[in-house]
């Protein structure tokens, strides 16, 4: 158990299936906000919200510019924008250049979240085909936060979790099935 204030999750290729499993296994009493950056390649985020909303234990919405981060909600980075968290815990979006060929970039979200929540942040890196998220997860750990990485052998595409392990290491490196109970344990009082 830790004093977790927020969870950030990053994934790309294979991420939809992984997120379904992850969000489906969460305890619906989780009070923390869960912010997700998934490189979807789809034009809009609404479809993804709907797909995930059907299986998720928590409501799934798109992160809205300038609005406060909401506890007990899954909030997705909109397609085509970087998602950041401001010091006053509101969302900001930018159209800055792609980072690791991606916008939204996991590194950008994790870096700003680590600045805000520091040791009270949990970072999760799942399946994916790029190294995005590795540097972000390093910053999460550097700020004293907790890093969870899906074991590469278990991931649909191992590149992303492997890159995260290589660059940041992890407090927990476990198969996807074990991540929801782990989060529930870390996040519920």
């Amino acid at each position, binding site marked *: 158990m830790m004093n977790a204030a927020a969870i950030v999750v990053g994934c790309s290729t294979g991420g939809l299936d992984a997120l379904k499993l992850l969000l489906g296994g969460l305890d619906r009493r989780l009070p923390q906000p869960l912010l997700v950056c998934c490189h979807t390649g789809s034009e809009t985020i609404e479809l993804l919200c709907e797909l995930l909303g059907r299986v998720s234990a928590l409501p799934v919405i798109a992160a809205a*510019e*300038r*609005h406060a981060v909401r506890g007990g909600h899954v909030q997705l980075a909109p397609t085509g924008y970087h998602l*950041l968290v*401001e010091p006053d815990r509101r969302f900001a979006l*930018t159209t*800055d250049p792609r980072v690791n060929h991606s916008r939204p970039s996991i590194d950008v979200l994790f870096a*700003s979240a680590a*600045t805000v929540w*520091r040791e009270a942040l949990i970072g999760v890196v799942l399946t994916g085909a790029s190294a995005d998220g590795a540097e972000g997860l390093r910053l999460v750990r550097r700020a004293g936060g907790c890093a969870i990485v899906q074991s590469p052998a278990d991931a649909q595409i191992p590149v992303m979790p492997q890159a995260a392990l290589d660059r940041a290491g992890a407090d927990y490196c476990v198969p996807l099935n074990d991540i929801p109970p782990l989060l529930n344990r870390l996040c519920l009082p």
Partner: protein
Amino acid sequence: MEPLGDELAREGIELELFIQAMHRRHGYDFSQYAPASLRRRVRQLAERFGCDSISALTGRALHEPKLLPQLLEGLSVPVSDMFRDPAVFRALREKVLPLLASYPQINIWQAGCAHGEEVYSLAILLEEEGLYERSRIFATDLSANALRQAEEGIYPLREAKQWSRNYQAAGGTRSLVDYYNARYDLLKLDDQLRRNITFAQHNLASDRVFCEAHLVLCRNVLIYFSNPLQDHCLALFRDSLVRGGFLCLGMCESIDFADSAGDFAAADASLRIYRLAANGAAMAAP
């Protein structure tokens, strides 16, 4: 290693001092920008200039005035696309331009034009709708370097495929190829498109109203501003627009927390197209 808390606190001070230096030395006020992304960009700028801290960058900003254009370019984000969010350009073509057509002279202000991708997209729309002869577009930006590039209208050819798709999706009646020449790995837009565009430097944070506009296009610029500066800009747009004039913001922008938002009525909320309400009364959608 310095504890991260201390490091962030120190960097916060450095950032404040840098912002002060830019303001007092060069007259550019970034204090009202959204902090998370500003911090990121200043960090990147320090790196690009080979400075190992923001303080070192501040030193250079103070001592080397000729760096100003590069600093401004680094702090602003001149990233854009032609016909980005095609649905917006389709709505401008099909819903907004027909209403603007009733004016003998159409003035459009594009604020934050970056490298000009959107201003040329507008010119093409106006051309195809037969309105360009009586239109004038003011394209403004903070960055002189960005404006210079915008005026050239030269872009990497690798963008052409996506931009052509966007153009078609936005209801283009011809082919985007008709508007440019490709040479090597560059594309150059037709000089004719520039004939009614005026490029000018204008700082949304400090400069004033300069025209009477029928349409203001300001997409993905206010997202970089904190709430008070966003509100200030919306007031600036209100004061620039004719009654019933249109304002088009970026697709993910929220004006939910701005007082001046009350002066506008949504014409298409999901596309972020608004209309200046006559005497504050909400107007019907077009």
